[in-house]
């Protein structure tokens, strides 16, 4: 082992902690923490992280992990401090004016955010980009989908008062390849008062601008943005994330909609991360559904699935206005 690294790391953490917490305290006390004080702390953090990265392989893995955890904790406290002292407009950020001497291809100042990103493009000619859009008061099933490749992307946008039910009619006969639809990614945007009943998506489920919906889906990653009053029944093994969301409730994907092989898999407890609440206190923006609510909802959905209930009959499963 490289001795200098080892010796250094033994003194590294206490030293770093002392300096970093002093700086963070100072920043907190200042009437308005300045950009410079954040810069300072960030530079310190970068240096420390770099040294730790350099030491990889030179120190025991356990120690390495402990140091990484501590550094991440510092990063989080800096971020939350920055967030709490940042001027409000939520995601907009301004760039420093570029130095006069700087090489620059464009001087355009990009204001990222309140403007929603453009809606998905019109249906493309490739049948592996399946699009479902601009409908209201419909019960939509696989039979209503345009012809598509067996493996396809699915974009759903601008729906209101719809049920989108892409589950096989009977979960227990699912392994039939012809009936099988393999969704590589789900993009949903601007859905209001809708219920989505979906099988497992191989990639991510990306959702934007949803209001009062129920989403039943299995996926590799779940990322929801700018949405309110959503119940999510989820089969997932990574951490689902929300950003700029309110009144979201999570529960496990109902067994009744699972294929026989999915039923045998055990999934970890759902561990949500709220990117709009990066601090130690629990996020006020989501909760875990109670068992009663979860069972009641799953039963209502199973009934709807069997009898193709319209959304009006289902209105009591959506969260109230």
């Amino acid at each position: 082992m490289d001795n200098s690294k080892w010796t250094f790391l033994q003194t590294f953490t206490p030293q770093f902690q002392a300096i970093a917490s002093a700086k963070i305290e100072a920043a907190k006390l200042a009437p308005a923490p300045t950009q410079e004080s954040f810069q300072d702390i960030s530079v310190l953090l970068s240096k420390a992280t770099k040294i730790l990265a350099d030491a990889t392989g030179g120190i025991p893995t356990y120690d390495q992990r402990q140091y990484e955890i501590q550094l991440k904790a510092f990063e989080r406290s800096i971020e939350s401090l920055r967030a709490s002292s940042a001027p409000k407009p939520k995601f907009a950020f301004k760039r420093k004016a570029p130095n006069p001497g700087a090489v620059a291809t464009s001087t355009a100042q990009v204001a990222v955010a309140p403007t929603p990103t453009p809606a998905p493009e019109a249906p493309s000619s490739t049948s592996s980009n399946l699009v479902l859009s601009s409908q209201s008061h419909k019960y939509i099933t696989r039979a209503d989908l345009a012809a598509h490749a067996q493996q396809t992307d699915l974009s759903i946008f601008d729906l209101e008062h719809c049920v989108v039910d892409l589950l096989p009619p009977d979960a227990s006969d699912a392994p039939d390849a012809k009936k099988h639809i393999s969704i590589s990614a789900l993009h949903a945007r601007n859905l209001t008062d809708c219920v989505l009943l979906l099988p497992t998506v191989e990639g991510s489920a990306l959702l934007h601008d949803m209001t009062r919906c129920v989403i039943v889906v299995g996926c590799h990653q779940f990322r929801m943005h700018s949405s309110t009053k959503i119940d999510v029944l989820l089969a997932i093994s990574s951490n689902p994330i929300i950003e700029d969301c309110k009144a979201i409730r999570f529960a496990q994907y109902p067994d009744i909609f699972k294929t026989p092989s999915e039923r045998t898999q055990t999934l970890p407890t759902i561990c949500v991360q709220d990117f709009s609440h990066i601090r130690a206190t629990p996020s006020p923006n989501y909760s875990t559904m109670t068992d009663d609510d979860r069972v009641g909802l799953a039963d209502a959905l199973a009934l709807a699935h069997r009898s193709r209930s319209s959304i009006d009959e289902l209105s009591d499963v959506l969260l109230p206005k």
Partner: protein
Amino acid sequence: MGLLTIIRKNREKEKEMRLLFLGLDNAGKTTILKKLNGEDISSISPTLGFNIKTFAHGNYTLNIWDVGGQRTLRPYWRNYFEQTDALVWVVDSSDRARMQDCKQELHSLLTEDRLAGASLLVFANKQDLHGSMTDAEIRDALDLPSITTHRWRIWSCSAVTGANLVSGLDWVVNDVAGRLYYSTTTSPQAPPPPHAIPGTAN
């Protein structure tokens, strides 16, 4: 021993590079790095903050920073610019709807002073998915040919199959090495043209 002494010592001892992986959320940055490192990619969560990977590539030690791309995190990208030798911009080639967003974020990074000297590798990821945009389509959608301030290349790849990941890294490491570790007169290979010809990886 102080902080700076250690840094200096390490710089002398080994040839190092610092690579910064950025891109929109869901592009596949973390998956690429885990795949390159031979780790399991089956249950990766969206990155809250950043990850660091250090690994050897040829004669070089790469310090790779992978920073989360979710919208709330993008304002923090600038905290990681310092001493970046190369920027690796990862694109989800199947996400047609967000190409515009992707282009804007990339072009605004390229105006940053602290990234001024960095080489740029654009990974057109998720090529295994049917209906993904090709590298040529992405090159145009992101308007890469207009870039004159950075040497760049676009590389099709798939983090899931592993296709072209190593060769992409080779390009960027060689490009940085040509700048950092050989002077132009003693360079064993001729240095690449001022800005690399837009090319395809395969």
